[in-house]
C-alpha cells in the first residue's frame, strides 16, 4: 500500500487532492455524484463581506483546452457562509475545509478572515488577493508586493488557523509577490488563480463575456502553473498548494515534483463531476507504476 497522506501546516490530509474554490460550490452538488469524504480537503466558494450577485451573463466562454469565467465572486456573504453554508457542508463532510476569502479593501479582508477563522468548521484560511483594491484605483491587491504584504500581515493578526495566500498569475514577477507573503507571515501559498483572458464572438463582432474579460483555467494553463510553482519553491520556504489545469493523477505528481505539497483541481470538476474522485482513485495506481511509496517524498523532487 502506497502512502498518499500529506500535511499542510499541521492539518492532515488523507490525500493531496482538493477541489479548487469556485468550482465546487459548498460541496452539496458533488455529494449527489459521490461521497465527498474521499477528498483530501475542500476549498469552498470565494466569500466576501456582503452578498454578491456577481457579473452579468454570459459569464462562461470555452477556450482551447479550458474556459474563461467571469462569475464575479457570486456568494451569499461571509455571515451566511459561516452561519448556514459551512454547517450544512459539515453535516455531510468531515474532512478539512479551506475557507476562501476575497476582499475589495483591507477592512473587508480582515473582517471576513476573522469570521472565517472563528468558525468551528474551517481549518485553513485561503486568502484570494486577485480582486481589485477599491482604495487603490482598482489595482489588484495581488499584483503589488506592498499590498500583498499588508493584507497578509493584517489577516495574520486576526487568524489563529493557518493562512494561505492565493496568488494571481497576472504579474511579471511571481517570486517577489510570494516573498512578500512570507514576510507578512503567511503559513503557505496557493497558486495559481486564473489568467486574465478574452474571447470574441466573430459573428456578432463582440466579446462573448458580458464582463468583456474573464479568468482562464483548465489544462491550457497547466504549464504556466508548473513553472510558477517551480520558481516559488526555489525562492520561498513555504508549503505550496499547487493548482491550474490539473486533470489527472499524473498532473498531481508533476505539480508535487515542481514543489506543491497538495494540489487543487478546478475547472476539471465542471467538465467531469467525478474528476477529483477519479484522480484520487487513480493516484495509488500511478504511484505504484512510478515506484513512489510515499507521496510526501516527491514534494519538490524535481529540483
Amino acid at each position, binding site marked *: 500500500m502506497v502512502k498518499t497522506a500529506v500535511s499542510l501546516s499541521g492539518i492532515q490530509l488523507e490525500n493531496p487532492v482538493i477541489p479548487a474554490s469556485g468550482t465546487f460550490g459548498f460541496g452539496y*452538488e458533488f455529494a449527489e455524484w459521490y461521497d465527498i469524504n474521499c477528498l483530501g480537503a475542500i476549498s469552498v466558494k470565494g466569500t466576501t463581506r456582503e452578498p454578491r450577485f456577481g457579473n452579468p451573463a454570459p*459569464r462562461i466562454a470555452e477556450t482551447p483546452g479550458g474556459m474563461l469565467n467571469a462569475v464575479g465572486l*457570486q456568494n451569499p456573504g461571509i455571515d451566511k457562509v459561516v452561519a448556514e453554508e459551512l454547517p450544512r457542508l459539515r453535516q455531510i463532510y468531515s474532512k478539512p475545509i479551506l475557507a476562501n476569502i476575497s476582499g475589495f479593501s483591507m477592512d473587508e479582508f480582515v473582517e471576513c478572515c476573522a469570521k472565517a477563522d472563528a468558525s468551528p468548521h474551517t481549518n485553513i484560511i485561503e486568502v484570494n488577493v486577485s480582486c481589485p483594491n477599491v482604495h487603490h484605483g482598482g489595482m489588484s491587491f495581488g499584483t503589488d508586493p506592498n499590498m500583498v504584504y499588508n493584507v497578509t500581515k493584517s489577516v495574520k493578526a486576526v487568524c489563529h488557523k493557518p493562512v494561505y495566500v492565493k496568488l494571481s498569475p497576472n504579474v511579471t514577477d511571481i517570486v517577489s509577490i510570494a516573498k512578500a507573503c512570507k514576510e507578512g507571515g503567511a503559513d503557505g501559498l496557493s497558486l495559481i488563480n486564473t489568467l486574465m483572458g478574452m474571447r470574441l464572438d466573430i459573428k456578432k463582432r463582440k466579446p462573448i463575456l458580458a464582463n468583456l474579460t474573464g479568468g482562464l483555467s483548465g489544462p491550457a494553463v497547466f504549464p504556466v502553473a508548473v513553472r510558477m510553482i517551480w520558481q516559488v519553491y526555489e525562492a520561498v520556504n513555504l508549503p505550496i498548494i499547487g493548482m491550474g489545469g490539473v486533470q489527472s493523477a499524473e498532473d498531481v505528481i508533476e505539480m508535487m515534483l515542481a514543489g506543491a505539497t497538495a494540489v487543487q483541481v478546478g475547472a476539471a470538476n465542471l467538465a467531469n463531476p467525478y474528476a477529483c474522485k477519479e484522480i484520487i482513485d487513480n493516484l495509488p495506481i500511478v504511484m505504484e507504476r512510478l515506484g513512489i511509496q510515499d507521496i510526501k517524498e516527491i514534494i519538490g523532487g524535481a529540483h
Partner: protein
Amino acid sequence: MKRGLFTVEVNEKLAPGTFRMVLAGDTSAITGPGQFVNIALEGKFLRRPISVCDYAEGSLTIVYKVVGKGTEQMSGMTAGTVLDILTGLGNGYDLDKSGQTPLLIGGGAGVPPMYNLARKLVSQGKQPSVILGFNKAEELFLKEEFEALGVAVTVATADGSLGVKGFVTDAMPAEGYTHIYTCGPEPMLKAIYDKSVTSGQFSFEERMGCGFGACMGCTCKTKYGNKRICREGPVLEKEEIIW
C-alpha cells in the same frame, strides 16, 4: 443526475442544419420534459447542453441545430459512436399547472422540448395545442410528430413561406388556453410573456460551465431570488421572470 455512456443509434437530418439523434443508454435520472442533458465531446473542454426532446426507458432523443464546432462535430457522428452524457439536469416543466388546454410554443431550437411535454400532457388527457416558429419553411421539423400525437399544430414562419406569416406571437390566440409552456430565443420568450394572458413556464438558455449547479456560471436574477439556469431552471415561472 447521472453520468452515463450512450450509444448513437440514429443521427439523421430533419432539415438543413437540424439533426435528430437517438441514443441508447440509462435514462433513469430524467424526471420529465424540459430537462436537459450535457454532452461531452472529444476535443472540447466544456459539455454541450441539449434539451431532452423525448425519452423512454433505455432511449433518449435529442434534436439539435448546428451552430458551431461542437454541434458540427455531433452532426458527423455515425451509429455506434459512444458519448459521455450527464442526464437529469435542470428542473423541467411542471405538468400539474397546465389546466385542460395548455398552449405550447417552441421557436427554432426551442421546439424539441415541446415534444415530450406534448406527449405527456396528451397521455394525461389534456388537450394541448402547439405553435411552432421558424424563419422559413425549409427549417420546419417535428410537425408531423406532433400531429401524430393528435394535437393541433400551427406553424409560423418569419418570411411567410409556410403557415402564419410572422412570429409565433402572430399565431397566438387572444385567449382560450389555460397555461403557456414555451422555449426559444429570448426575444421570442419576451414577446410571448407580453402577449400571454395566463400563467406560464418559460425555458431559458445560458452559457454553462458545469450544468449541474457547481460553478455559478449561469445565474440569473428572478423575483424569487438568484437562480441557476442549470439547476433551479431552465424553466422559470412567468411571475418570477425579470427581463
